[in-house]
């Protein structure tokens, strides 16, 4: 692999001989992303062997996808914040405050107004949570960008303030249970879309991949950009589609637990089929995928996203170039607040309770996910897909170690070490490429 330099897309021309580097160049795949996927595969296989064949079971992968969802959702927002050379340390505490506010609203306030388990409860709760999240994010963003207090300090204050607010909202009580419709947001026994719908999502995703590739090609031709070779386009479409359908197949091979399946079949007056009933993709995972897609579009296709990267690359140049940097930074915090609200809804729904201790240390996991995913703390560099993968790496490590029965303190040590190693390799790699 001496020809790593060739793999950077700008320099790749149609090569006479197809070396690994030039193939990747033609496919325009980020080699760092590929490296992360390779690391993830190593971790997965390692745990699979060490856990005696449990880790890569459909069931565990299903668990893993649900457990990753909330952190992945929030990490997508953290990418933009870190890219613009800021930080948000208040994520975990805001999560607790929003979770508690939504818990109180649906368990104690709305039942008194519209009745217990009303159909609209979850919508009102979620919308209120999103608005409150945007307000909290906007408030912190305002102090950061317009008052000019460093984001580290503002959100460090927020870390303390919102944890306190979460406590004060209900004097430290645990609020439970959640509304039965709201619970669906967190997965659980009913919070998934079932087998057939999962296949539909999969097929839809494949069509989406093909559409994006075709559309991208048309755009490039229109503006006279270099086109990918046709074989590369076809390879991307096939590999992408196979990956999506494979993931759906794995998820769908996890049948509903016996007790639930019997209950489900009895409710519909049918017999349980011999292969069991597929659970399908869990709602929080679907939400996380949706959020990641929307955030990718915002970060790469929208003006706002380009501004954020421009500010991170060089704030002065961005300001001089006519970008309203303050307003843009404030908006990243509003977005973060909204994403934290979604994360809080997923977490409280999943736990079926709101506690004032919810999300302790989550800010660090969210930041770590973004950073492991290749977001540079120096600003200007980062991808949404990387952050989602980073979240998956972190959660894989934790779930895997729990499966193996590793003690909690040792788990923390391993996760901490992996964080530093991952960023170390990344830094080393970047230096080598830029040389």
């Amino acid at each position, binding site marked *: 692999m001496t020809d790593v330099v060739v793999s950077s897309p700008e320099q790749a021309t149609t090569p006479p001989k197809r070396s690994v580097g030039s193939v990747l160049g033609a496919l325009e795949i980020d080699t760092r992303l590929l490296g992360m996927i390779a690391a993830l595969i190593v971790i997965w296989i390692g745990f699979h062997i060490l*856990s005696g064949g*449990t880790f890569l*079971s459909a*069931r*565990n992968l299903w*668990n893993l996808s649900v*457990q990753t969802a909330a952190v992945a959702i929030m990490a997508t927002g953290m990418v933009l914040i870190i890219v613009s050379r800021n930080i948000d340390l208040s994520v975990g505490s805001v999560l607790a405050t929003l979770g508690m*506010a939504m818990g*109180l*609203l649906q368990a*104690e*306030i709305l039942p*008194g107004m519209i009745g*217990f*388990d009303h159909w609209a409860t979850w919508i009102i709760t979620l919308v*209120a949570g999103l608005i*409150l999240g945007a307000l909290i994010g906007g408030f912190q963003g305002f102090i950061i960008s317009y008052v000019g207090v460093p984001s580290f300090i503002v959100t460090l204050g927020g870390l303390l303030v919102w944890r306190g607010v979460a*406590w*004060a*909202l*209900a*004097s*430290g*009580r*645990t*609020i*439970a*249970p959640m509304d039965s419709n709201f619970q669906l947001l967190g*997965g*659980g*026994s009913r919070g998934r879309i079932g087998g057939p719908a999962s296949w539909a999502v999969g097929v839809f995703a494949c069509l989406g991949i093909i559409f994006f590739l075709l559309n991208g090609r048309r755009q490039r031709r229109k503006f006279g950009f270099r086109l990918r070779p046709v074989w590369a386009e076809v390879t991307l479409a096939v590999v992408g589609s196979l990956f999506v359908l494979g993931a759906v197949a794995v998820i769908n091979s996890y049948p*509903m*637990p*016996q*007790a*639930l*399946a019997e*209950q489900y079949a009895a409710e519909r007056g049918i017999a349980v089929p011999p292969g069991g009933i597929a659970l399908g993709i869990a709602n929080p995972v679907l939400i996380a995928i949706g959020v990641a897609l929307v955030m990718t579009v915002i970060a790469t296709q929208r003006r706002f996203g380009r501004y954020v990267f421009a500010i991170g690359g060089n704030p002065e140049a961005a300001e001089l170039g006519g970008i309203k940097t303050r307003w843009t930074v404030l908006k990243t915090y509003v977005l973060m607040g909204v994403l934290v609200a979604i994360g809080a809804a997923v*977490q409280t729904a*999943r*736990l*079926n*309770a709101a*506690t004032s*201790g*919810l999300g*302790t240390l989550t800010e660090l996991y969210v930041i770590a996910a973004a950073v492991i995913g290749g977001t540079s703390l120096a600003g200007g560099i980062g991808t949404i897909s990387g952050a989602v993968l980073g979240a998956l790496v972190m959660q894989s490590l*934790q*779930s895997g170690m*729990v*499966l193996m*029965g590793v*003690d*909690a*303190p040792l788990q*923390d040590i391993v996760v901490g070490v992996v964080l530093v190693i991952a960023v170390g390799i990344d830094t080393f790699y970047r230096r080598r490429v830029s040389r």
Partner: protein
Amino acid sequence: MFAGPAIWRDFIIEKTGRKMTMFKRRNLALLATVALLIAACGGGDAATTTAGDVTETTAAAPTTTGAAGAATTSPPGDDEEIIVGVSWNNYNEERWAKSDEPNIVAALEEAGATYISADAGSSAEQQLADVENLMAQGADVLIILAQDGEAILPAVASALEQGVPVIAYDRLIENPGALYITFDNVGVGRLQAEVIYELVPEGNYAIIKGNQADANADFLREGYTQVIGDAESSGAINVACETYTDNWDPAIAQTNMEQCLTQENNAIDAVLSENDGMAGGVVAALEAQGLAGTVPVSGQDGDLAALNRVALGTQSVSVWKDARELGRAAGEAAIQLAQGAAIEDVAGVVQFDSPGGNSMTSILLTPIAITQDNLDVVVDAEWITVDELCQGVTAGAVAVCP
């Protein structure tokens, strides 16, 4: 804004309930000062702004105080009135204000003693200063809810040297000269295990323990061993999963339970969870597998959500420590100590061997196991309302729910 009026009302009552006592104290001080000023002004006749006047006012103060003191029917003195100083580690936690303090105060008032207090706000250093301040204010007995059982030792030793008895309230202080009052934590573990063992005498158990750094997590496990230890060694009970939980975090307990169910392919017959918060996470994990209600789960603390789960049948037992009882016991013991009793002579003491190797003179109160059969206990104690307890429960499924 987002909390219901009822919650804010409780919150305000709880907060101001305490502030009132402080407020009264401040008011008294204020009244005294005003009285002094009036007396001084009356004596000095002309109030001017010269420095001389200020000095005069200060100089006049002791005399006036003396006169006022003499005028009252019972002159204050260390020999007559008992002052009990309470050092809270963190008053912000719901339970201290709601349950413990009012009952300590009630026990003291019955004996005509005075209650003074300080809050360390979760700071071990602040608590050292608080203890000194309480002694400076003339406390005859100290009740200490330690933030850190080790860091508080110098202050406790100094208090004991000055002849001020110390009560270690709910949390262990490793000084054999202190009287330790708590609920029997090993007993809590025993009660949980007894209820679960009766339901599931053999099979696969999952044990969800609390924070590894917290001695209570191991006390509780010790209680489990006392009940299911024989069955464990005979093989009737197989402990399939056993994990500590960082910070007793319900979300971590949920993940751990999910991993346990995955590992054992749902072959878990009972779960011993050390507290109610974690039991909530465990039940959520069981719910996702359709097992909630069929697999017995334990807990402790009498959390409102947990008692609701007991009524719903998804949790089998919540061991409830009636904090009011703890407060009363501490108040009564404080009075006995102030009247000159040695800690060994206080009613109801036993010897307890601490993890630090001390033989502590202790009062160990017995907790109550709350199951579906005796939910009326928590309702009668006004710990929970019937509405809160019975939310979502099918009418008539449990005796207390109408």
